């Protein structure tokens, strides 16, 4: 296992996709901070705080993890490295776990590449966070845990799909599905019970405003809303939405959910990889 990790680490730090993803995430964070600078006009000014912009990079972590995991693991199938590792006596479990650890490290590097410039640039420009330092640390830890959960999922797809192009495409599409699904679930949970139709009709010669119509997207309290709330916390796309909008009410719960997700993805991936025919 140690040899696998050591060899993998050497490959990881030479992986261009990792440094591309880290640079893109860092640039995105810097852009978010710079675009939130205080805006001043004649007799007015708008001040933005770090709270609103710092955690925006959570959305990028998903795409970055998909890209890095698929690019890092993909060549192992094409070059025959995966089969060679098994021929040299490493167990399938160790091969899978070493790749999982390395992809998790890559996700942490991507997250830190946004956190460090965000803090270094944001605090001098926008001032300190309005929220307490404890919550800031918790939210950053939450995003790191979410990155690890993404790594577990994309390690699974990369280890099980031998075709490199298909593996990359599947990982990127899955990342997009996660983000879209998270946004859709969050939108349903935030829907109001009634919506304004914004229309008026003539009734008996008088202009009467149409009443508020029940919002079909509204989810009343009940089992369906509970399922949506659970999915919003459980799926990494929903978590990313909560971190981006700064609405993560209980980051510890989200971290716990990430733990469950990592365990489920790893157990499923290990089980399927054990049965896989490796050419």
């Amino acid at each position, binding site marked *: 296992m140690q040899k696998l990790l050591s060899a993998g680490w050497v490959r990881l730090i030479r992986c261009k996709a990792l440094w591309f993803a880290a640079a893109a995430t860092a640039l995105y964070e810097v852009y978010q901070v710079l675009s939130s600078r205080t805006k001043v006009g004649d007799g007015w000014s708008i001040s933005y*705080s770090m709270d609103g912009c710092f955690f925006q990079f959570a959305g990028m972590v998903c*795409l970055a993890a998909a890209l890095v995991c698929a690019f890092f693991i993909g060549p192992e199938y094409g070059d025959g490295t995966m089969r060679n590792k098994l021929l040299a006596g490493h167990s399938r479990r160790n091969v899978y776990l070493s790749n999982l650890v390395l992809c998790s490290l890559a996700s942490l590097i991507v997250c830190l590449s946004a956190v460090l410039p965000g803090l270094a640039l944001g605090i001098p420009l926008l001032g300190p966070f309005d929220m307490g330092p404890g919550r800031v640390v918790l939210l950053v830890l939450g995003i790191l845990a979410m990155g690890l959960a993404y790594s577990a999922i994309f390690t699974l797809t990369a280890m099980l799909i031998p075709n490199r192009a298909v593996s990359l495409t599947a990982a990127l599409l899955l990342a997009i599905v996660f983000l879209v699904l998270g946004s859709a679930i969050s939108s349903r949970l935030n829907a109001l019970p009634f919506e304004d139709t914004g229309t008026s009709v003539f009734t008996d010669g008088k202009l009467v405003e149409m009443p508020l119509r029940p919002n079909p997207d509204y989810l009343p309290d009940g089992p369906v809303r509970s399922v949506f709330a659970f999915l919003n916390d459980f799926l990494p796309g929903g978590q990313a939405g909560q971190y981006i909008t700064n609405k993560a009410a209980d980051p510890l719960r989200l971290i716990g959910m990430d733990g469950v997700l990592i365990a489920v993805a790893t157990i499923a991936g290990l089980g399927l990889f054990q049965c896989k025919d490796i050419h």
Partner: protein
Amino acid sequence: MGNLLSADMARLWRCKAFWLSCLFFAGQTCATMGREYWIGTQTIALHASLENYIFPFAFFLGLAAAVVCTLYLGAEHTVGFRNKCCVGHSRASVYGAALVTCSIASALLCTAAVVPGAILGPILLGEGVSAMALAMIAGIYLLSMAYAAVFTAIAMLISSQAAAPVVAILLSLLLLAVGYAGVQRLAEPPTIPNPAAAPPTIEGVEPDRDAAAPERIPNPNYLPDGPARSAVQFLTDFLPGGQSYQYGAVSTGTASMRLPQKMASCAAVFALSSTAGLALFRRKDLK
């Protein structure tokens, strides 16, 4: 050229990514129609025309075209292109056949979304296809061709089977994000409520209440009439991502259609991408 097209179409017919994308588009349109029908039976239905329900697929058109074009053409880089050139086909014919096939694939993706909508619309929602919807459908077919031209160029020029889909998918997302940002910027109002005078309604804005402060202040993001606004307007209409967003957002009422400009832009993108792609493909080292 005829033989090349025939062989390419036979391969497209067996491309799983193409059929999965068609299935996704058809399913998405049916789901939107079904949902609107259900809402109409549950609540006060608002009058809306068919174009409000057919076009959300435009959001995903670039993504699907990127996946189909690159996965379909990527397989040719191993031996296909070299063998075609070896047996006497010119590079222009090889490129042209690939472009035509990818354009047909993109047009079929649109058809997979539009046809169920046109059939289900009158049945479920009592709405036929209006003249405006027909014009938009024509525009969206042209948009699909523009996407096909861009992603064909990428797939023909990037030999790595893994890199081409990544570049194409990320480009499609970038185009959509730029289009979204452009539309949002153009929709900014000239003034906004003053956070210093009113309770904070804008997320991330630090309130600093002041009784003497004006109720509304100029919006720093507003683009007044001038070269900057014209440039953003042009880019939003010219880039395929901006068009995708505007077609897809018809139902949210944010789009104002300038169909002739959009169609001309699609033709320009198609011509530019194909010319540049063919010129670079002629010089490419086919290993």
